[in-house]
């Protein structure tokens, strides 16, 4: 863990200490925002959008199964800290690899829906990002459609919107 901590920037280190060393927030080489949760090494990378909303998490880590030419696939596990180190360096230097190799789960906003407001007043994303929701309380999730979520619809131009009607939020 010392090696990982030693290469954090001062800002990253401050954030790391502020969350009781439970996560590392890092900006990728392409400008994406990621959080590495230090509670495991599988599915522990969260991607945030520019507003801080979680838009997905990725399962990607240094390979534990190594192909040795004469021995075939062998299991060669890494320590947690070394796995986090690999995740951190890859995000920071090769963010594209995380997008392309990682197994992604896309998320919708888990916040409570905004309370009913006076007709005509804008409704805003409950996560506090400031985005204004449309009449169907949609349009603040952007990501690829998932078959399991039939309430995610693909609008013209490739924009994905997701309804947050109350009867479906818990699905």
């Amino acid at each position, binding site marked *: 863990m010392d*090696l990982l901590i*030693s*290469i*954090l*920037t*001062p800002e*990253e280190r401050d954030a790391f200490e502020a969350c009781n060393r439970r996560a590392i927030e890092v900006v990728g*080489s392409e400008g994406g925002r990621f959080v590495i949760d230090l509670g495991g090494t*599988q599915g522990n990378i969260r991607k945030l959008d520019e507003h801080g909303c979680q838009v997905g998490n*990725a*399962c*990607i*880590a*240094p*390979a534990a*199964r*190594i192909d040795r030419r004469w021995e075939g696939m062998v299991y*060669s*596990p*890494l*320590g947690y800290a*070394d796995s986090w*180190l*690999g*995740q*951190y*360096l*890859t995000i*920071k*230097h*090769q963010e594209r*690899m*995380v997008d392309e*190799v*990682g*197994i992604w789960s896309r998320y919708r906003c888990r916040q409570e829906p905004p309370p009913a407001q006076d007709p005509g007043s804008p409704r805003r994303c409950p996560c506090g990002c400031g985005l204004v929701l449309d009449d169907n309380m949609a349009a603040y999730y952007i990501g690829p459609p998932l078959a399991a979520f039939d309430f995610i619809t693909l609008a013209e131009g490739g924009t994905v919107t997701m309804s947050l009607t109350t009867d479906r939020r818990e699905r």
Partner: protein
Amino acid sequence: MTDTVQRTEEHVLHITDSTGDTRVMWDPRNTDEVAAARAAFDSAKGRGMMGFAVDPHSGERTGEQIREFDETAGKIIMVRQLAGG
């Protein structure tokens, strides 16, 4: 009378694998040490590991992923390639 020891900038290669964090240090002026570090780098690279040159004192990006050993780099960290799981 005391000897004066001239300290040089630290150059270290970290190789993180299942045996832990293996460190190889070298002095750029010492050809034997440079050769040993280069051999360790090439060996790890041959096992499919990736090398990153980072600032010795912080994680600030100091270059792209390196594919060849750079004896002038302050700190090189080698990690296994990532795989989706």
